[in-house]
């Protein structure tokens, strides 16, 4: 029996054909070929449960939240606030008031850089790593230039893991106020030792923000077990809609932080002389929020919970293991990043072929992968690359699709050899 057949029989998420039927887009054809979607790390496809929840709200149960005393507004407020509870459970946050809705991970990190950043003093430092997404680099550079703090960068090893020794050394002088680090790399697939990072940082008196944009999609996350101070993620990678993201932070931090944006919904009272701030979490949610999108995120959380993130993790681990084995068998193909602990994101280069050409040829076969610097230019420079192609797996991907990718890459290699 082939490896593929063995893997297929014991699929950890059960009937993958039935699961795929939840995602209408997977029926589409691209250039006349069945869509093989291997770009979920950029943004995941949406199950019908999410689509219906959003459309259903707009059809039958919609009004602005937190304001109207009428029936529709009350029901919509319940639905919107109910999603906060779902997020709390998803990441095991201690309380719902600590869950702040944002537009995406990028906005959540900017919120922390602005509000928590304003509490840092010149001479203090923010410590990031070499494998951050631009979203977890640029806000800290802007804070550095605004507030006179220092920005430190912890190196990654050749294997693509965080260099923990160097990381600890960068904490040693006690001047780091915040460590902001990815929980899972969107380029290398590396899962960082978050609990260890937090322990080291706390020992040195630093707070820790974990960028969970990738991690939360691929494995169960428990912010209390990790010991984190801030955790951010973005809805559209978790099979939810765009326009909704999450910042979780410890209550005492949110209490101490000034608001990010001003406007309606985030105030207690307003006069022209002064305003007071609303209770948590509303202090950080100025203006009419992304109501429909939040409801979609709630449906997405229900969806992944119904499958089980542990089973999703096992499924993607099988796909990743199979993919690494197949890709390693292709001459001239090099997988970039060899972390021991990793998720379903695989970057690779091909001898004599540019990542964009590889991606274009795969696309003509209906296979969607990403090519480029993956919003991580400094990491690319560190690895001595200008771009890679990247295949990333979602809950709906199959071993057969991995084989299609590998077979096609073998042909592409023949073409550019």
């Amino acid at each position, binding site marked *: 029996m082939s490896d593929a057949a063995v893997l297929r029989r014991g699929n950890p998420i059960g009937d993958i054909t039935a699961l795929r039927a939840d995602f209408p887009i997977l029926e589409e054809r691209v250039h006349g*070929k069945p869509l093989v979607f291997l770009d979920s790390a950029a943004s995941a496809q949406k199950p019908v449960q999410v689509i219906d929840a959003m459309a259903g709200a707009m059809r039958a149960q919609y009004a602005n939240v937190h304001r109207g005393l009428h029936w529709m507004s009350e029901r919509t407020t319940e639905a919107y606030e109910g999603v906060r509870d779902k997020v709390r459970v998803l990441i095991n946050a201690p309380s719902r008031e600590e869950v702040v809705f944002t537009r995406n991970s990028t906005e959540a990190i900017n919120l922390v850089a602005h509000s928590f950043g304003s509490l840092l003093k010149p001479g203090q430092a923010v410590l990031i790593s070499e494998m951050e997404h631009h979203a977890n680099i640029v806000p800290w550079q802007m804070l550095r230039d605004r507030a006179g703090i220092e920005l430190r960068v912890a190196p990654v090893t050749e294997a693509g893991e965080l260099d923990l020794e160097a990381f600890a050394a960068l904490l040693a002088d006690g001047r780091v106020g915040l460590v902001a680090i990815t929980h899972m790399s969107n380029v290398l697939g590396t899962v960082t030792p978050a609990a260890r990072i937090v322990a080291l940082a706390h020992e040195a008196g630093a707070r820790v923000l974990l960028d969970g944009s990738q991690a939360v999609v691929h494995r169960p996350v428990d912010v209390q077990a990790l010991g984190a101070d801030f955790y951010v993620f973005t809805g559209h990678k978790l099979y939810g809609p765009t326009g909704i993201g999450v910042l979780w932070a410890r209550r005492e931090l949110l209490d101490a932080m000034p608001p990010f944006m001003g406007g309606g919904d985030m105030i207690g009272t307003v006069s022209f002389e002064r305003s007071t701030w609303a209770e948590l979490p509303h202090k950080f949610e100025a203006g009419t929020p992304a109501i429909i999108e939040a409801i979609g995120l709630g449906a997405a959380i229900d969806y992944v919970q119904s499958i089980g993130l542990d089973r999703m993790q096992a499924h993607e681990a099988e796909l990743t293991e199979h993919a690494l084995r197949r890709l390693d068998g292709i001459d001239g193909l090099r997988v970039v990043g060899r972390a021991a602990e990793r998720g379903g994101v695989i970057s690779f280069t091909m001898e004599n072929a540019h990542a964009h050409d590889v991606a274009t040829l795969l696309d003509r076969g*209906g296979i969607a992968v990403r090519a480029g610097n993956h919003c991580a230019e400094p990491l690319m420079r560190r690895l001595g690359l200008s771009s890679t192609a990247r295949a990333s797996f979602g809950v709906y991907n199959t071993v*057969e699709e991995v084989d299609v990718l590998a077979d*096609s890459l073998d042909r592409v290699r023949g073409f550019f050899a």
Partner: protein
Amino acid sequence: MCWPTAWTGSVASSPDTVLSEANAVPDGASLYRELVMTRARRPERAGALDDADGEGSGTNPLCGDTVQVWLRRGPDGLVQDARHRTRGCAICAAAADLVADAVVGKDAGAFALLERRFGTMLQDGPEALSMGDRGAIGFLLALGDLHEYPSRRKCALLPFSAVRQALVHRPGEPDGGAG
């Protein structure tokens, strides 16, 4: 059109031949036609010019591709020789070589006209060009299928901007390296 056998041959004994066949990419070649691949693999105008009187370069920040161009003009102001150093995808590399060919014998005005015609071809497809314009575009017509690949058009446009710059910048002048 010429496809290496690796593309057209049947799939090896994969257990999932059916899906594999369905996703085989025989028409993926339309963009990568022979002239494009030949010029990408073995550029005819690669290298620098020692006696250049014009120099330009460009970088595509999205993919990091870079093109450097050197030109030498004659007493009549027309380009006599053009060379380039390109680090990029096959489309960018082939375009750089073909554009370096095309600029020879032209001045800035004639090159601008060529660039406008090329832009029309990318935007509206090769059919949108008159017979005369097709003739004027010459071998660059090989990149006509880019019309169907909007995300790849910038790869072919990068050498144009480097040459445009070389037509106004002398070597070593400030601004010569902006992209």
